[in-house]
């Protein structure tokens, strides 16, 4: 089971609305969160190696997220689940919904992105693993599966850590795990016939968590305009003047 979040495309330079009430998302290009696309690619490869029978993609949000689920189906997922929520949800609620889906679908792996590039929270996978009371392997850059155990290389500050976890488990993908495939036109046609189940969050009996309140939004502080130097000597003397050398 792979969680796909619909987010502002990573190439878009997001702007804060002038009244500070949020960020401008009208008419902006939306995509699958890049980490989630990588998670899906890895799930498809696991299936192609004969180590999984089915790949299910799921997403939570408004009806718009069905676009990203269709893209996931076109990439090769077998079926999709859309859980309709009123408005955006935060990680703990997302994890509670995913847990309900897990209880229904009994996947061997719940694959998420390590972070959504809109809220940059980096929480949902870890929270899901806690609620499910199963292992987590976050920031995965290599996954090998054998006899019910996943051996995962994780990108940590010190370098690459390897852990072994018993399945079922939660994995979250890092960027270097793989390069997602491109979707081909015939696959888009085929994806239209695949099943996409929609249900409301309330139907699942999920209790939403207390949310953090967003008080205001602002653009990041601007760095002061820089200065071009003409030569190495000038660079060195500027740095000496600033007391940096």
């Amino acid at each position: 089971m792979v969680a796909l979040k619909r987010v502002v495309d990573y190439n878009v330079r997001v702007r804060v609305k002038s009244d500070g009430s949020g960020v401008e998302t009208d008419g902006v290009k939306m995509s699958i969160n890049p980490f989630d696309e990588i998670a899906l690619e890895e799930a498809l490869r696991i299936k192609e190696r004969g180590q999984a029978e089915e790949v299910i993609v799921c997403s939570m949000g408004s009806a718009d997220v069905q676009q990203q689920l269709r893209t996931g189906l076109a990439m090769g997922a077998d079926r999709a689940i859309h859980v309709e929520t009123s408005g955006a949800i935060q990680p703990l609620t997302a994890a509670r919904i995913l847990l309900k889906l897990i209880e229904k679908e009994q996947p061997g792996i719940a694959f998420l992105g390590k972070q959504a590039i809109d809220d940059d929270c980096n929480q949902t996978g870890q929270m899901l693993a806690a609620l499910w009371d199963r292992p987590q392997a976050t920031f995965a850059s290599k996954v090998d599966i054998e006899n019910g155990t996943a051996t995962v290389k994780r990108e940590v500050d010190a370098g690459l850590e390897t852990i072994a976890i018993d399945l079922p488990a939660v994995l979250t993908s890092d960027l270097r795990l793989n390069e997602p495939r491109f979707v081909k036109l015939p696959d888009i046609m085929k994806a239209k016939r695949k099943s996409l189940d929609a249900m409301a969050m309330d139907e699942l009996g999920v209790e939403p968590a207390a949310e953090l309140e967003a008080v205001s939004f602002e653009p990041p502080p601007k760095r002061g305009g820089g200065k071009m130097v003409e030569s190495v000597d000038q660079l060195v003397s500027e740095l000496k003047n600033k007391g940096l050398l």
Partner: protein
Amino acid sequence: MSRILIIAEHDGTTLNVATAKTLTGARAMGVDDIDVVVFAADPAAVAGQAAELAGVSRVLSVAGADFEHPLAARLAPEVAAIAGDYSHILAPSTTFGKDLLPRAAALMGVNQVSDIMEVIDARTFKRPIYAGNAIVTVRVPEGGPVVATIRTASFAASDGGGSASVEERQPQASDPGHTRFVKVEGSDGEGPDLSSAPIVVSGGRALGSSDNFAIIYGLAKKLGAAVGASRAAVDAGYVPNELQVGQTGKIIAPDLYFAIGISGAIQHLTGIKDAGTIVAINKDAEAPIFEIADLGLVGDLFEIIPELEKAL
């Protein structure tokens, strides 16, 4: 009741400086009691170092053979078990804190505040979203603890000179056994640490090969600097992944940063926003890195670096 608990990050013998930075963030919250908890196979040395940090009230020292490697599945229930005594649970926003704290937060039934960059009051914080393109001020609702990671690049390390008491505690949970540490591979640890070095020299895709990257290491050595890299340089295999600077690499705040042969993609810039002075060297005068650099020099890095080394 207002009390803060900080989860110490360490390698078994030395307290990571990220903990002292987290402490500075904690002290900005206006809460008097700040405790630090150390989970380790043999916590004495690390607990002693934590006790010396100014502003710490107590150090909780929890020994367990299965704490040798910080596995989130093992530690999260321990954190949740002692969390009841605290209004705030904090960890650094390093891969250690990011892996562990959300798991503990879920056990406590609350959302986490990730990457606090500024403290407004004890429950209100600023944090970056959209790769730093926007800053949101969030307030944690009453009725549950504040569980948060601290963006270490935003806070200086707290000073030493403290003398907190150290209390020994027993582990509350047991090893679930389903998660096993195998190994960790890192660079040889030569030269200063990228996360905390005052000077960092980073190279990008322009270096072209790992052999060519030696020129970056050479300059860094001359400057006593740590070496960093763009994701493109890491992906191409010029340097190991732990040198990556940016949204998905390390967020750093050196006094002086050299971006050499790096174009300045937004995801890279996110990692260096808090640097004191940014120097960009790039042969393309239109490269976006020059828009944020304090000092820019247009030219071929393979000519400029040898000249620079000579001039130093």
